[in-house]
């Protein structure tokens, strides 16, 4: 098999349509030292397309036992997905009940002793039951929180999609400029701003800005020598790209520069850690 033949067969290989002999020939060619003429790339693209076929199916949440089965076979164990509710409770109750049954027919002293022990076991079981109910209540509260968070995320995603479309639409308008934002100080981040001075609208698009816990990427508008004014925040689009809209009220007069800084969550009135600046 040569490279041209492999590239011809790559889509069929990834789709799983080749017979065993052909599959082996493809794999043998890929394993050859080369030089190759785009074999790996062709195969990677075909595999990505095949993965998209799998992603066309609605994902299914696995039962927790699926991960438990995996974790049990990992050498050295593995972290648990989430805290399990106690499974010992039925056993504790059964043990207490069994204890109570055994005391019947025994002598009075022994009966009293067994009764006391039985009562203690029942008391302990009751206490464990109370704790278990507390766990259930907490689990329910967590589920409600999760549900609310899910709704919030869906809302945020819709909002971001709108923002992205608005930014792209602005690019098509006459008079729109794309302004690069270069790194400030020792930082290496870069971004771009889409600015239309006539329409008083501007968006900042950045790549490779990883979300940071407890921090926000804040936007700033700079007019002349006046202090920078807070102009909004960058939001993650979900694909490693972040986007933010500059507060239109600050664009009534064309600004001289735009900037992005990293601030504690919620932002600050003046920038503390400026990452990027771009002159308009």
């Amino acid at each position, binding site marked *: 098999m040569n490279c041209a033949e492999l590239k011809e067969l790559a889509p069929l290989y990834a*789709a799983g349509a080749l017979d065993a002999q052909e599959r082996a020939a493809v794999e043998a060619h890929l394993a050859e030292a080369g030089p190759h003429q785009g074999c790996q790339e062709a195969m990677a693209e075909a595999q990505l397309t095949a993965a998209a076929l799998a992603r066309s199916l609605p994902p299914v949440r696995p039962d927790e036992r699926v991960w438990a089965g995996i974790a049990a076979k990992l050498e050295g164990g593995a972290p648990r997905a989430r805290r399990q509710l106690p499974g010992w409770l039925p056993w504790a109750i059964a043990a207490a009940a069994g204890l109570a049954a055994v005391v019947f027919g025994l002598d009075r002293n022994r009966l009293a002793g067994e009764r006391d022990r039985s009562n203690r076991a029942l008391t302990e079981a009751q206490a464990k039951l109370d704790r278990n109910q507390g766990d259930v209540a907490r689990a329910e509260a967590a589920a409600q929180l999760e549900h609310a968070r899910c709704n919030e995320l869906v809302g945020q995603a819709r909002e971001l999609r709108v923002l992205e479309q608005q930014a792209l639409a602005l690019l098509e308008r006459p008079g729109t400029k794309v302004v690069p934002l270069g790194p400030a100080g020792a930082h290496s981040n870069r971004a771009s701003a889409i600015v239309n001075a006539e329409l008083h609208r501007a968006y900042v698009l950045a790549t490779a800005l990883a979300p940071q816990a407890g921090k926000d990427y804040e936007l700033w508008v700079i007019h002349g020598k006046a202090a920078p004014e807070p102009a909004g925040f960058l939001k993650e689009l979900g694909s490693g790209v972040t986007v933010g809209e500059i507060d239109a009220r600050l664009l009534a007069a064309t600004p001289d520069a735009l900037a992005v800084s990293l601030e504690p969550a919620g932002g600050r009135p003046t920038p503390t850690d400026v990452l990027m600046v771009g002159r308009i």
Partner: protein
Amino acid sequence: MVEIAQLASVRHPAATVIFLMARVASALAATRDAELLGRLARGDAAALRSLYDAQAGHALALARRILRSGAEAEEVVQEAFLEVWKRAGQYQASRGSVQAWLLTITRTRAIDRLRSRQSAQRTADDAASEPEPAPVPLPLELAAQRQDRERIAAALQTLPADQRAALDLAYFEGLTHSEIAARTGTPLGTIKTRIRLAMEKLAAVLVDEGGP
């Protein structure tokens, strides 16, 4: 890293932004994949859990589609993740994403089971007798993931029916081109062409819309 500022000099900026975003996202995903596989290869079980949280829903959906059996599909997903765990050191980023690798393993194992089931002459009725559990959406499946699925579904809809049918029979039913040709009474060369065209067209549509 591609700079979005480069679009200032091009004629179709909106399309370019989307294209650049796709490239940026792809580069970032590759970086994340490499980091994740590095942790897996060092025996970091938390990394496997991260991969599981992100991908088990897709893997289980695929295994269940192929096997039409919830219990067997769960076993296949377990096997697939354990194989990733054991073979993380052999992963080659140049051959595709971690997701593609995991789903390939999942599919291969599911198809192996399907064939083994067929060779043991268990009838399709036996398999179908197990009620197929209804899909349960992941609670944290973000709108972006749903958009991804809808985008792929829309791309699949653009394929001619005979190409899509051939692709389905190969990918989800595990039939080779020869078996599809025999089953459908279509010349082998035609089946090969249909599958190749379907894959190429799907790739082109998905790349145009922001990457597969």
